[in-house]
């Protein structure tokens, strides 16, 4: 049951990922008095892409072919490293929080390389922007994780999640709120959503993520898109399990596992609601304003850390 639960956990993430993206889309549509796509559409799009033929740039090298697979693999490994429905993560161990960050970075590294591979202007532009913003988001992300790790006295993601959810809600509020703010900004930046990047833009000059994958089509594009949705869900899952208190989840029996999946879904949906709300109410920032936003995230992470050092020691 233990291993089965761990496997199931990752599979749930893989399976739910398109739906979480769909939810935000639907919400945006509702705010604009549109009906929006149906849930089936999210999966149908992926299926269609998997079946389509490919057009490949005449300048592409093997990097172009390797990237979707490396990106997908590294994202899937990262997905199996985080706690979602209460099972022990498949690849979890003490110190895995750093490894998790670096696995996501591996995917990004190849994504940025493949963008340069075809030698187009847009690819280079997207690649340069993605790496710049990604590296600026890194210290804030790490420091937030470290602040939470300091509170929970453990360096494993699942340990952090279980100890944070066991905490009395009011006690930790003073450091959880800034940490949540920091991590939310990082999550938005990393999953390429407004106000950092607009996932539904059609203007190449303003793209970041889309500009990198302009040359892709067919199954490769499907893998990339899926990986991107998984990555977005990974961040939502982390936010949900660290910051939204809930009864302890478990996968000890099928019934408990079903309940855990439901609670998990509720938590992630409420966060998706928040992300969608931000998306509806914000305009995309100018590229050179984004560092300010990430600076805010870093400052919040520092405050979360400092708050613990100060208030924690005199309680």
């Amino acid at each position, binding site marked *: 049951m233990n291993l089965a639960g761990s496997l199931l956990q990752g599979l749930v993430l893989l399976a739910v990922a398109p739906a979480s993206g769909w939810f935000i889309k639907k919400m945006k549509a509702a705010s604009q008095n549109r009906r929006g796509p149906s849930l089936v559409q999210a999966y149908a799009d992926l299926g269609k892409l998997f079946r389509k*033929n*490919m*057009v*490949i*740039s*005449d*300048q592409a*090298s*093997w*990097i172009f072919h390797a990237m979707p*697979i490396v990106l997908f*693999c590294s994202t899937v490994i990262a997905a*199996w490293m985080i706690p979602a429905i209460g099972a022990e993560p498949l*690849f979890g*161990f*003490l*110190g895995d929080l*750093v*490894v998790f*960050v*670096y*696995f996501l*970075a*591996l995917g990004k*590294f190849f994504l*940025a*390389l493949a963008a*340069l*591979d075809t*030698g*187009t*202007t847009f690819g*280079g532009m997207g*690649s*340069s922007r993605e*790496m*710049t913003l*990604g*590296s600026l988001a*890194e*210290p804030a992300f*790490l*420091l937030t994780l*470290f*602040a939470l*790790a*300091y509170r929970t*006295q453990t*360096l494993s993601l699942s340990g952090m999640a279980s100890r944070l959810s066991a905490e009395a809600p009011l006690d930790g509020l003073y450091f959880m709120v800034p940490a949540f703010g920091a991590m939310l900004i990082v999550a938005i930046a990393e999953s390429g959503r407004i106000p950092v990047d607009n996932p539904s833009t059609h203007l*190449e000059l303003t793209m970041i993520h889309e500009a990198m994958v*302009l040359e892709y089509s067919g*199954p*490769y594009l499907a893998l990339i898109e899926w990986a991107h949705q998984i990555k977005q869900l990974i961040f939502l899952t982390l936010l949900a399990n660290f910051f939204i208190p809930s009864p302890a989840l478990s996968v000890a029996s099928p019934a408990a596992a079903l309940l855990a999946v439901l609670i998990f879904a509720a938590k992630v949906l409420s966060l998706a609601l928040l992300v969608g709300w931000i998306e509806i109410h914000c305009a995309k920032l100018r*590229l*050179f304003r984004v*560092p300010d936003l990430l600076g805010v995230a*870093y400052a919040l992470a*520092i405050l979360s850390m*400092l708050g613990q*050092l100060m208030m924690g020691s005199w309680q």
Partner: protein
Amino acid sequence: MKTLFLLQFIFYIFGALIPALSGKNTRLASAASHLAAGIGSMLGLACALFVFASGIPFEWVFPGEGVFGNLTLRLDRLSAVFLFILSALSAAVSIYAVGYLKDHHRDARFLGFVYNSFICSMALVITAANAFYFLLSWEVMALTSYMFVVMEHEQKESRRAGLLYFVMTHLGTAFLMIAFLALFLNAGSFEFRDFQASASALAPAWKNAVFVCALIGLGTKAGMIPLHIWLPEAHTQAPSHASALMSGVMIKTAIYALLRFLFQFLGEIEAWWGGVILCAGILSALIGILYALMEHDLKRLLAYSSIENMGIVFLGIGSSLFFAASGRTAWAGFALIAALFHSVNHAFFKGLLFLGAGSVFSAVHCRDMERLGGLIHRMPATAAFFLTGCVAISALPPLNGFVSEWMTLIALFAGMQFQGLAARFFFPILASLFGFAGALAAMCFVKAFGITFLGSPRSSEAAQARESDGWMKAAMAVLSAGCVLLSAGAGWTAGILSRVAADLLEGAPADFLPSGQSVCVSGPAEMGRFMPAAGLGLLAVLPISLWIWRRLRLKQLKVRTGPNWDCGFSRITDRMQYSATGYSKPLRRIFSFLYQPLRRVEVEDEGHVLLRTAQRFESRIRPLFEEVLYRPLARWIIGLSEKARQIQTGHIQLYLSYILLTTIILVLVVRLL
């Protein structure tokens, strides 16, 4: 084993002499000379591995005379680590040099001589157990590497880089000499063993003074910011195979000596040393990589990234000192292992990258990335090896750079266990800034690989590049394999290094790879379990790729090649590609307070804007350290010298009287002391 140990030096000397003795056939002489060095390195490698396996240090004493004492060569575990770095890298580089120097080096014979002497001197630096002979080999090392730097002496930059290197390295040696002399005064002998034995007798003030001198002296060699300015110049001007050794090994001899000083010669460790080294480390890591990102000369980029990596090693050493000073021996050992591991790793991937850069240079005769591009099609093997190096140096799993950076990060995080508020606050900040440097490094190497090897050629030379020959490919393959092996065998490597750390810290090696403490990690043992699991994870996703591949094979999936997306306008040309300068433009704007970029646009026209004939654009960054720190210093020294010139009149009698006066004063001083 002892004979083997000595035999390697004999091979180096032999290798150095071959070019001088051989006849007219330059190519053969050069090849033989480098191969001799290669064999010597293999012997050195065997010795290092033997010491790891048996744990018995061995020693060779040549009786010497006078105050300097015997020439003692000792290979203990610490020396063996660095001998391993040296030998492994120089073995690969020697193979490489045979191919690299085949065509275009009229000085190939002289290079063979310098090359062998360089390796020999580094081996002596690492194994000499006597300060006098250490300094002697240190100077020979500086001199031979200087010759590499000025190899292209007809070029102005080369001479300038050589001069800068010469001045800086001697400045460093002067400080190092002071440190050694102070230790000599205390111990009464130049033997390292005596230094160590009398370390506890060192007065605190002396101890701190020696630390400062040693840090400045060795920091100069290691490229520690702000003493780094020689490094990018010198490493760029030297031939690529020599740069690989300089960057991979030579700057690490400074780390070796620093470890000897900190953990053996100076007795009780003070916490503030750790603070200083941590600050220097994070500065070097961040500023080094930020400058690397601005470069579009491939070798300068690599050189700046060496500064970053030395910063990472310093972070490991600094936190180790902090832990050791507060009696947390287990964590001190962990941090020290991280630092040593990163030294080993850096030698492999930076050596690999420099060799790759050399291959590019010998194929295109150009190091400027703005004129490269698309080389992956022309040089597939070199590209694959270079990519391996890039992934490793960006600390991405599953290659070796990741393991040591992970350990350093964890060690920094463990600093939060301290009671002091400042330590608790600054350690995680340091860790996050270090993560920032790591992310910037990934960007830097996406740029280095992407602009150089991907896209389409930016010049006709790049379009006609030829793959390098078998020797060069073999050497790069060896180093790539090293990167993979060091990661797959991370647990073993950490085990070996933990015994080295135990020698330095006098603790039990088993403590250093802790598991299951409160704020804590499991160490590489867990890592060793994780890597196979991750491998399995990769395998699990293999079916998808197989499935796509099968469908491609069975023509269920049609693939059409076509031109790039051009927004529906005319076709995109090669000149529209993102350039190396453009790639890092966002950072140049965000960090403009550091770079202080200068931008000049000149427009020439015939009387009206519309009749434009030429437009020139110039953009460069201000070298802050040179302009803010070194120029004023140089001006001050020159001003001082101007004043000193007043005693210089041109009368020879006056000069003789100065000599007389000095001698009299000396005699009197000696009498009074």
